[in-house]
């Protein structure tokens, strides 16, 4: 005991980094070599600490050792780890005054946890995980709103404002509390007092005393509303993704990321557009106003899915792109009258379509064109042959204002900017 307590604090081989010697020392775990081994890799203060915890040194510190548990918070969730520690005394706040400031949901008097054996508050296990996910915006955390990203991208890529159509047909009904009525629930104090004073003047003459004014039930007036009609632009964005076997995880990741930015820009622009139409200033909570989203996945058959499924599904099988466009055609016919809706379609695929399917797909797209604002096709470069993009361009040309295509090689900031540019930049109408 004495010997080990009096070890010199100067490591014997300080700075020697020869891995051979180090391995040798660590392998040979005789008592004598243990101390030498400290000089490498292992933190000597940590080793000393462990010797004290295990009672091999400094017995007088035993009374300060507590078999503590440590609270660790992970994204709002608190987990306990066992961790013996030596708790040295200091001047500190007493337990009776225990308390602090925290954050989370709950009202005054709610029990939010228990005091553990160590005197520290813990969640108490019963409602584990409840505190998780207290931050709102999952994509960018609480700090950058999607509108902010959209503004950056629009400015950076000089994207034009979207040109909606058919907005005259759609009105948004809005309530304005502008009228006064004798019935209601929300008292208009100003009008009520006015009536009371008018009545007093009628009763007592012009030189009435302030104390004479009182309110009779007949004086009371209420706020009421008028319905105002405001113009509103509506849009539906239909996202279609190829989830066939040839689309690898990397390709799907690219598709999903590109999709996120496309929808960010469009939703922001519609928010701004609607603010403009209604003569109001834009704020971030108008993001996505008037926009509906439809998600479609396909391999050799297509189906409509939820947003979550769209971002997580892994399918396999062959590729029949026409199935997706047939479904889209059906959805538009049933739900989104082109008279009232601005329709955007974005489709992601590796372009490895079944040979005989491409002509049919192009035919459906041609039929869809008069009804929609845009069809965008993004092709992920893959090991497959990927010919759909060239077929598309053969039919519609490379600068068609409604049918657009883009090719992505890898996941990078530059590539995503290129996709946005290809899909949303200004293009002149041809012919008509």
């Amino acid at each position, binding site marked *: 005991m004495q010997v080990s*307590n*009096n*070890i010199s604090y100067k490591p014997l081989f300080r700075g020697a*980094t020869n891995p051979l010697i*180090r391995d040798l020392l660590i392998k040979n775990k005789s008592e004598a070599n243990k101390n030498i081994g400290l000089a*490498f*890799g292992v*933190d*000597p*203060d*940590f080793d000393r*600490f462990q010797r004290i915890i295990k009672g091999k040194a*400094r017995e007088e510190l035993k009374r300060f050792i507590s078999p503590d548990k*440590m*609270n*660790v918070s992970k*994204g*709002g969730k*608190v987990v306990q780890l066992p*961790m013996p*520690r*030596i708790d*040295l*005394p*200091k*001047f500190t*706040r*007493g337990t*009776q*005054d*225990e*308390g*602090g*400031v*925290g*954050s*989370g949901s*709950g*009202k*005054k*008097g*709610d*029990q939010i*946890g228990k*005091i553990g054996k160590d005197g520290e*508050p813990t969640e108490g296990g019963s409602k584990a995980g409840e505190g998780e996910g207290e*931050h709102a*915006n*999952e994509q960018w*955390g*609480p*700090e*950058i709103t999607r509108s*902010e990203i959209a503004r*950056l991208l629009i*400015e950076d890529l000089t994207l034009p404002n979207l040109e909606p159509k058919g907005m005259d047909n759609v009105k948004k009904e809005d309530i304005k509390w502008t009228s006064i009525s004798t019935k209601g629930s929300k008292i208009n104090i100003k009008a009520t007092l006015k009536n009371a004073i008018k009545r007093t003047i009628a009763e007592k003459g012009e030189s009435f005393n302030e104390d004479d004014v009182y309110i009779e039930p007949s004086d009371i007036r209420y706020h009421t509303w008028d319905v105002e009609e405001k113009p509103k632009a509506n849009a539906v964005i239909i996202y279609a993704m190829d989830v066939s076997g040839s689309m690898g995880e990397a390709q799907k990741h690219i598709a999903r*990321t590109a999709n996120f*930015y496309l929808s960010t820009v469009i939703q922001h622009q519609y928010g701004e557009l609607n603010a403009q139409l209604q003569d109001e200033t834009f704020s971030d909570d108008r993001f996505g106003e008037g926009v509906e989203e439809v998600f479609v996945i396909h391999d050799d058959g297509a189906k409509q899915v939820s947003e979550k499924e769209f971002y997580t599904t892994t399918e396999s099988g062959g590729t029949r792109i026409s199935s997706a466009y047939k479904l889209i055609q059906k959805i538009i016919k049933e739900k989104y009258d082109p008279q009232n809706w601005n329709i955007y379609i974005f489709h992601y695929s590796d372009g490895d379509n079944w040979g005989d399917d491409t002509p049919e797909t192009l035919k459906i797209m041609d039929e869809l064109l008069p009804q929609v604002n845009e069809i965008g096709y993004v092709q992920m470069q893959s090991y497959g042959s990927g010919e759909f993009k060239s077929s598309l361009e053969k039919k519609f040309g490379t600068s068609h204002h409604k049918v657009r295509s883009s090719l992505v090689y890898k996941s990078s*900031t530059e590539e995503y*900017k290129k996709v946005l540019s290809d899909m949303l930049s200004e293009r002149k109408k041809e012919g008509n």
Partner: protein
Amino acid sequence: MVAKPWLAPKNNDYPIVNASEHDIGKGIYGQDNYPVTPKTEPELYDWNQKIWKVGKEHGLDPFDTRFWIMQRDTLLQTAARSGFPVRYRHWSFGQAYQELLMPQKHGLANLYELVINNDPCYAYLLKENPLYAQKVVMAHVMGHSDFFKNNYMFNETNRQMLNRTSNIASSINGILDSEKVTVQDLENFIEKVHSIQWLIDLTAKSPKKLNLNKNIIKEPEKLPDNWGKIDTSSLPSHMDKRINDYTRISKEVENEEIRRETITKKNPPEPERDVLAFLIENSVALKPWQRKVLSLLREESYYFAPQLQTKIMNEGWASFWHTNIMKHRDVIDLENATSIGKMFGNVLALQKFNLNPYALGIEIFKDIEDRWNKGHHGTEWETIRNMEEKENYDTKEMKGREKVFEVRKNYNDIQFLRTFFTKDIANKLKMYTWNTSGNDVEISSKDFEDIKNRLLEMLDNGGQPLIQVVDSNHLNRGEIVLKHSHTYDLKQDYAEMTLENIKSLWGRPAHLDTYKTSSSGTKKPMRISITDSEGTPSKNVIKRYILKDNGAVDYECDAKGDRLYKNSGVYPYLYAGI
């Protein structure tokens, strides 16, 4: 010797400016770390330059900052030593390492950044972190570096601390060779100092110079001959005799002489916040090596003190800038947006029982910027009654940026919260105060004033109870008396054990005047005394005296639970000073 690219001859990528940089290179014990240079980490180096350019365009003015790549183990060991690769040997750094290591092992926490206040600044990057995380860390570090350089609390800190800690370490470790001191003695002494390491003057920005000749007894200054006399030259001559009456003057002179003598001989003349300095200057029990260790550790305490008092601002400022810089078009990273968002979210996550300084700080800075952009301050705005009008008020003066820079320069945490913490921020962060009720933890209030007061109380004096030396010759027996300025009760058993440490450093009995709040909520003065037990001087006796309502002193028991005296007025003089 392993070849180190950054040390190779004729390589000007990384000129060594500090001798201690070799220590960073070595890591704590033998691992190889390396700096970010165009050769070692070209991509990171490139991003570093870009981020710095963007930050400087925004007006940040950081120290020259040097990034080092570290392995996880070394980074944690360095973090346990507050970012310095070489500190004196003590097991408490090993304990700190364990506390950092365990959550990492379980994948519960990730250390993102470590930066030290030094010129140049040194910051460490975890080798295994992906590039996007390193970028966020670099942007975050830039905020810290700017804060260290410009905030007034740091004006007088030692900017060569990397070298200094290493010198302090060799001085302290060297004691083992030069003096006949065992490892246990040294460790034990350091533990005692650690237990009172924040008993320094936290209102001072740098330590005052020590005066080691203070033990010499001073004589009070002599009164000038005309002291107490009133100038009557402009009055008729017979008035002088009546005004400057001899009996009156001689009595006043006598009183003044007594007053001056007590003040001059009283040590300290005024309550002394810097307890460590007082012990160094006045304790007769300290051996030379102990005085040396105490002085060196006091120096370190003063170096770290500004960080204790600017935690919320410093982290808020760094987070404010990492978000701003990462949004910039030259830096924005679209492919890893989700991961970065998660990272931001983790850093800013709300905590149930604690305050997240990152989240609170960034919210306040953002709020200041917004308010000063729109002119939401000053009497004109405050006197608007209509809530809607008040909210939509906008002078478009766009002074927000200017204002946040001014705030980062001239405030510390407590001033920052007192001035800029608002109800809206408390609501946004869903803040509440909690208290214990039995074993339950309950939300005690969601009221803004309550939250603000609790926060200010928690941050007061750097979060440490204010304890000052008021007398060092109590009862004319050389006993030291400390006074706790009460805003809350001290943890009693800890206070007693800490006071035992002070007694040991002082060499004579020690007393602490504090208060005890009973379960009914009444607050009574209490004195804790540590004295030698009769017969066995090495053993301490703890006594607690509580003043009762009728003026008598209630004597509690000693540490073992023995009731030595029945409650009575045994030591009535004890409370004379309270």
